[in-house]
């Protein structure tokens, strides 16, 4: 059962081909109407909430960039105080608001055991402010604050492993997902909201502006991220074995990288062969660790 009504109204101001808009629409299909959504400052907040033209057909609050998890905790406590045990509290926030500036608040919410589903839409940079690096930005990707140049090949550090950090809190449910597999995403959101306690879902959302590809290719690019093994899709319910989305048609990492301007510097000559090999190794390790092969 998914919600038939569109709870994210059309006519919002997302860019054409925006992965975040797709993710949000799907998430609301899974939650239905009995939900309160908290969003941190970022693209989602900006394109859905112009004053007097909100696209939200569910109760929604945006407070600041770094406090989504804490605001949600207050919402949850208030619902409890009002004797409301049915309305779900869901955070939908960007990777910057989750991996970086809002990290402490999320850790606190997890540790307190609040019954909140925290969903990070992961477009792998600070898109709203013009594509600056976040700790979710993948290794070797360029952003406006990690440009390639004679002395640099983009971001020098690997992507932060947020799902593992979430898991280390001992929370009830941790999952990764991609907008390219809508049924999987909806199923995971439904699963998460059915479990009591803190839950973390990280949804990979391609951003054509930030990553540099044609808006018509959002889904194709997102699929390649999964098929190369760079973005493993899995879920872990506490006390149960990990469930993994297997990859049937494995692709080399280059197939994903070459689609995007943020990696194009790696293919200008031979200089960065090693870096590409390093990225391939990340994929290989994922295949092995998560058992991605069919």
């Amino acid at each position, binding site marked *: 059962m998914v919600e038939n009504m569109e709870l994210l109204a059309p006519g919002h101001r997302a860019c054409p081909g925006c992965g975040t808009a797709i993710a949000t629409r799907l998430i609301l299909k899974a939650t239905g109407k009995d939900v309160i959504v908290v969003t941190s400052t970022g693209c989602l907040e900006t394109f859905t909430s112009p004053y007097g033209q*909100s696209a939200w057909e569910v109760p*929604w609050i945006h407070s600041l960039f770094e406090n989504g998890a804490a*605001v949600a905790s207050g919402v949850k406590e*208030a619902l409890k105080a009002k004797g409301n045990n049915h309305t779900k509290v869901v955070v939908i926030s960007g990777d910057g608001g989750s991996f970086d500036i809002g990290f402490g608040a999320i850790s606190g919410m997890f540790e307190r055991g609040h019954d909140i589903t925290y969903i990070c839409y992961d477009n792998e940079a600070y898109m709203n402010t013009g594509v600056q690096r976040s700790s979710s930005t993948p290794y070797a990707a360029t952003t406006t604050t990690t440009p390639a140049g004679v002395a640099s090949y983009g971001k020098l550090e690997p992507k932060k492993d947020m799902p593992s950090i979430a898991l280390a809190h001992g929370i009830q449910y941790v999952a990764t997902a991609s907008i390219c597999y809508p049924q999987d995403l909806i199923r995971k959101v439904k699963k998460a909201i059915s479990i009591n306690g803190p839950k973390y879902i990280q949804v990979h959302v391609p951003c054509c502006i930030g990553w540099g590809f044609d808006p018509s290719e959002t889904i194709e690019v997102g699929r390649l991220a999964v098929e190369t093994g760079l973005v493993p899709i899995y879920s872990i319910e506490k006390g149960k074995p990990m469930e993994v989305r297997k990859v049937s048609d494995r692709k080399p990492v280059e197939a994903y990288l070459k689609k995007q301007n943020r990696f194009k510097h790696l293919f200008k000559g031979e200089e960065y062969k090693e870096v590409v090999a390093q990225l391939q190794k990340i994929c290989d390790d994922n295949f092995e660790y998560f058992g991605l092969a069919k």
Partner: protein
Amino acid sequence: MSKKAVIEGSMAVAEAVKACRPKVISAYPISPQTHIVEDLAKMIADKELDSTMVRVDSEFSAASVICGASATGVRAYTASSSQGLLLMTEVLFNTAGMRLPIVITGVNRTISAPITIQPDHQDTMTLRDAGLIQLYVENSQEAYATHIQAFKIAEDREILLPVMVCMDGWILTHSFEPVEIYDQELVDKFLPEYDPLYCLDPEKPITYGSYADNEVMEFRYMMQEAMERAKDKIQDVALEYKELFGEYYGGLIEEYRTEGADVIVVAMGSVLGTIKDAVDEMRENGQKVGAIKVRSYRPFPAEELYNAVKDASIIAVLDKSLSIGQGGPLATDTKAAFYNKKAPKVASFMAGLGGREVTKETIKNIVYKCKKALELNIVADMEFVDLRREII
């Protein structure tokens, strides 16, 4: 029946907050705020108070929890001091902008560096532009009363702004005084259950905290208007409290022996106790001296203050915080309130920073300096009182 007990100022606040029955409390420990929150935690543990306390990872989260809870339609409370209030700053501006009627105790302590736990008003004064109503209290009984009044003012549908009750750390929070604690029934009669105008509710979805490019001016205008309305509301609520509880601490300001005064000392907070004693002694010696307590710093009582002092020759404004590079904020605002009017001279004194003691002698000395200034017809810009020149 009400009961009188000798209790800590912090306990007086906790008793008042308990009587207001907030549904959600969230706080993070910092001296000298700690006792208030500890007392509330114990009340909840003992089932004397039916409320949730969310023990958070930071003041930033505490304020955010309160923001979320208030937006979901329940009464919510937090308290902090000094660095904690600064860490809350971004959230407090935001909460005020969303017109959420939370109540915060600002337990006054100065700001680092240098780090110290000593009191002055530097922390709460830094928040004066946040859109919070700020009420400064003189003693524990007034702290009790003002917290109960605070919820009523904040939640009034003509106002809908957060209220911060500012009280001097240690001097008030950690000293024992006899305090009258009133019956729950009486408080309930004064402060009915919170009935929000709007809240986050799946039955009636609304959007809080939208993006606005072309409406900010109007939002600010409406906040300014609400602040203007709060002037009457603060006064009315104080009078209503007087009627029911028989106590009155002033509305926006409190005048003390100002009739026929030549010199009037203007200040905020606990120092008023000392100032009033000094005024009494000077009056006994035939000196025409009075005092004014500014109870509401935001909204600023420009008109009330002017009317109260206009016949004096000079007023001494005592600031316990410094806008570095400008001067004392209370003095600055006072001067602005008098501009273009026939007004007494204004002498500005910086006193009590970082807990530097202000005694009756300090006050008498300030009054003496004001008289000298009148004689010589020279009023200095600002003077640091009891400055220890030997360590400069």
